[in-house]
């Protein structure tokens, strides 16, 4: 889920930092610029791993900074497709489940990636899985039937629970606030700002979902393969 990315940049060091050793000043300048930021098609930057190469600091006309050309390795959060990771449930709604890792929380499980048959319980504000309901003739029961089921047989996915999820796709959005769009003289409302980096996950597979579900599971469970992905 973490990787090293090699990045090259030109950075200024303010005169106030001239007293520090150059490596140290550079690393903190890089961290200041990149840490906790999403780089398009790269991932979420965490921290500098090390410097690969740095040139001499040069003074430009116009400011008192030393400008360094520097190549460095960055620790980046970017889970690869099909990677299995652990995440906590941040919230649930009709559209799916939102997950959080603490430092990153644009992770979603859409309805299609929930184990079937599943439904959203508006009273509990949580999704639940009803393994028994699927057995009869293979046809998916309606949401109505699912919500009529006895509460005791439901397997809830509660807020704060730790889920084992598989990363399906990740998407980057680079929404620039361009000029206001207008079609036929009418101003078009801009759609809401999207998160720059979102990860879509799945729990529709044996072994995925709340860690507690599978804690004492026997290897026998593997036969019935309810794989949705």
């Amino acid at each position: 889920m973490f990787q090293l990315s090699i990045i090259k940049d030109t950075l200024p060091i303010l005169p106030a930092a001239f007293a520090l050793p150059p490596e140290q000043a550079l690393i903190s300048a890089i961290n200041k610029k990149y840490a906790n930021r999403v780089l398009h098609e790269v991932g979420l930057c965490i921290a500098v791993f090390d410097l690969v190469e740095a040139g001499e600091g040069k003074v430009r006309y116009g400011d008192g900074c030393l400008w360094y050309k520097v190549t460095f390795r960055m620790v980046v959060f970017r889970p690869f497709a099909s990677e299995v990771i652990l995440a906590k449930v941040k919230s649930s709604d009709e559209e799916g489940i939102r997950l959080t890792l603490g430092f990153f929380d644009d992770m979603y499980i859409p309805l299609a990636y929930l184990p079937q048959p599943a439904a959203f319980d508006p009273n509990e504000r949580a999704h639940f899985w009803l393994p028994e309901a699927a057995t009869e003739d293979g046809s998916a029961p309606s949401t109505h039937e699912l919500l009529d089921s006895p509460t005791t047989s439901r397997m809830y996915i509660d807020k704060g629970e730790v889920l084992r999820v598989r990363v399906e796709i990740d998407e980057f959005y680079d929404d620039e606030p361009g000029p206001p769009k207008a079609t036929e003289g009418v101003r078009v409302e801009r759609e809401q700002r999207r998160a720059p980096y979102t990860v879509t996950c799945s729990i529709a597979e044996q072994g995925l979902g709340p860690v507690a579900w599978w804690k004492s599971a026997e290897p026998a469970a593997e036969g019935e393969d309810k794989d949705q992905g």
Partner: protein
Amino acid sequence: MEVVNPRSSLLSNYEVLNLLRELESDHLAKTKTALRIKKEEEASGKPVTGATTIEDEICENLRTVEVEAIQYLTGDFQPIAAQSDAGITKLVQNLEPYGFTKAEKLQIVNLAPTEPVELYVIVEELEDRLGERMEEVLSHVRASLDPDAVVAVSSTQPSGGVAENQPTSNSATEAEATIEVYGEETWMQDTNYIEWDDSGEGAGIEGDLEMDDE
């Protein structure tokens, strides 16, 4: 800014945690020294010099992501508390004969599956590829985890303090671990792969800097 190689190698959670803990302890040490210097200066009646203020403005973003990531990685649902440099190195060696892909090995190290279900999720077509040898893999994983560490750390959990209690390994061992896990060949290949583009033909800053060189 230019991305030379977006994925030059993969890191295990354990390595990332070590790096972050090192940063964290560095930061704590710095803050302490800065405070001490400040106090001394105040006591001796000298005006506060600029040196301390540089240390003070350590990047907010870095601190946030650092603390949150440490929290996530040391959560009690993670196997990391029971892992060690030696354990992981041994585990990776033991996994060699089973023909796992790099990604599978990384996930086995990160998640430390101790039950068959967990391994099924990580490894595709587990039964065809491993058959009876699955138990062996699980026992290798169990062997790599230190049962005492789990007890010790889970009792002192809610992170933060952990960084101070546990000695953080230095970057040398960290680099070693990276190589152990992901194989030396990729490492070398990657370093050779970089093309140093120092021609600096672009306009603006890059151009300015190159002017007197060429």
